[in-house]
């Protein structure tokens, strides 16, 4: 039973990685026409990636996802939210869903910390920046962005406000921040929007969004159920630029306070 699941995940990962490996081989041997440097190690590395990703996915499916999905359902269930009243009011005040916002924030933060793609980018960023951008600093900044994005996205679903108001306002903030942020961080900040939502976050977030849109009175699953991922991809851009601005500001203050030490 479990072995079948692991095998399934393994085959699935192989199928995902197959076009990439084919392409790399074609370019390496047909276009560049040179053997791969350190081929043995690289092949072993690919085997590790496939094995690792398969185990990771099966483990999530066994441990976190069923519980997370169940929770998203229970937390949005009217009998939990209006437990004492016994009936569902026709017009719901958005603050009744406070546990949902807290859950969205907490699950967004914690799953982003565990996101492998983000870790990959953080490793590269530290290496390229010569250690100026720490792995943990970047991960926590991105995780905070995802957390705020998901909490706000849940609020949007509960209130039913149109998604593009929020996204466009977010774009305006990003553009303004770009003018003041240190130049070095800008491309990395823009990238962190896209890397946050892959393996871990998307399935949980989708369950939360659809659960909310189904149970909040007056919401349409089709129009209101989507959009959480968009929030989770937009807010890390702001939080990473803010992180760079704050650490730049602190470094400047530190310098002005004790000028001899620098």
């Amino acid at each position, binding site marked *: 039973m479990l072995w079948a699941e692991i095998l399934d995940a393994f085959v699935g990962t192989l199928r995902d990685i197959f*076009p990439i490996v084919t*392409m790399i081989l074609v*370019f390496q041997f047909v276009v*560049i026409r040179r053997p791969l440097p350190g081929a043995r190690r*690289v092949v*072993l*590395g*690919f*085997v*590790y*990636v*496939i*094995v*690792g*990703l*398969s*185990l990771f996915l099966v483990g999530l499916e*066994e*441990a*976190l996802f069923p*519980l*997370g999905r169940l*929770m998203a359902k*229970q*937390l949005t269930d009217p009998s939990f939210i209006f437990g004492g009243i016994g009936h569902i009011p026709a017009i719901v005040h958005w603050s009744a869903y406070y546990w949902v916002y807290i859950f969205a924030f907490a*699950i967004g*933060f914690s799953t982003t*910390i565990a996101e*492998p*793609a983000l*870790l*990959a*980018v953080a*490793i*590269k*960023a530290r290496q*390229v920046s010569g250690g100026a951008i720490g792995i943990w600093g970047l991960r926590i900044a991105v995780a905070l962005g995802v957390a705020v994005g998901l909490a706000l996205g849940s609020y949007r679903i509960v209130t039913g406000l149109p998604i*593009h108001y929020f*996204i*466009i306002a977010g774009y305006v903030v*990003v*553009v303004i921040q*770009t003018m003041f942020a240190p130049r*070095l961080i*800008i*491309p*990395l900040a*823009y990238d962190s*929007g*896209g*890397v946050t939502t*892959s393996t871990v976050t998307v399935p949980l977030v989708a369950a939360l969004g659809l659960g909310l849109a189904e149970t909040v009175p007056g919401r349409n699953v*089709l*129009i209101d*159920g*989507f*959009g959480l*991922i*968009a929030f989770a*991809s937009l807010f890390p851009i702001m939080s990473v630029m803010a992180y760079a601005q704050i650490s730049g500001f602190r470094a400047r203050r530190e310098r002005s306070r004790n000028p001899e030490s620098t």
Partner: protein
Amino acid sequence: MPQSLKVMARSLLGSLRDLSPAILVVMFFQLVVLQQPLPNLGQLLFGTLLVVLGLTFFINGLEMGLFPVGESLARALARKGSLFWLVAFAFTLGFGTTVAEPALIAVAEEASEIAAQAGVIGSSGQAQESYALGLRLTVAFAVGLAIVIGVVRILKGWPMHWMIAAGYVIVVAITAIAPREIIGIAYDSGGVTTSTITVPLVTALGVGLASSIRGRNPMIDGFGLIAFASLTPIIFVMIYGMVVN
């Protein structure tokens, strides 16, 4: 070898630490907020063990396989000096990794159901399937194009923020005229396109390229490819929604 065992143990501990916030959050909500017992504790522990092992293997494999391959290919292509092959590589990388992406397949299916319910396309299974396939090809093309634009940007050293700002303006302009049902899906499709395998490879491509071209800073010019890949699908999915309409 005790040395490599030590390294392995350290990275296992690191993975456990990465996962612990998620475990704590789930336990807190289950036990304190919802006040339910933990179901299948054994299964939960075993699943956590698998996740920790998987994360450890993945990170080690990343540094041994995906990163060096991405960078050495980018360097070799840059040395070759052929714009055609570089652009071809960029497009295939974007298109090839996206068209089979499971998250995208799921989103495309949901979108086709929505389109059928909104009466944009026929409600027959065939009409929905061709709509979903069209959507997948659209997004894959958009990501391929995004990586090409990003690579050309690295070669030319154009500043990133002007291009992203222009992309935002296009998104906002198209939002105003796109059918309302497609907007949520379009915005989401930007986030789901970049998978766990694509991200390290694309990052290595950008950094490798920027560090092998004189006058480029890998920090300023090397990053940013994923940002383009998250922006263009939003635009193209909305256009797709309008064209099919």
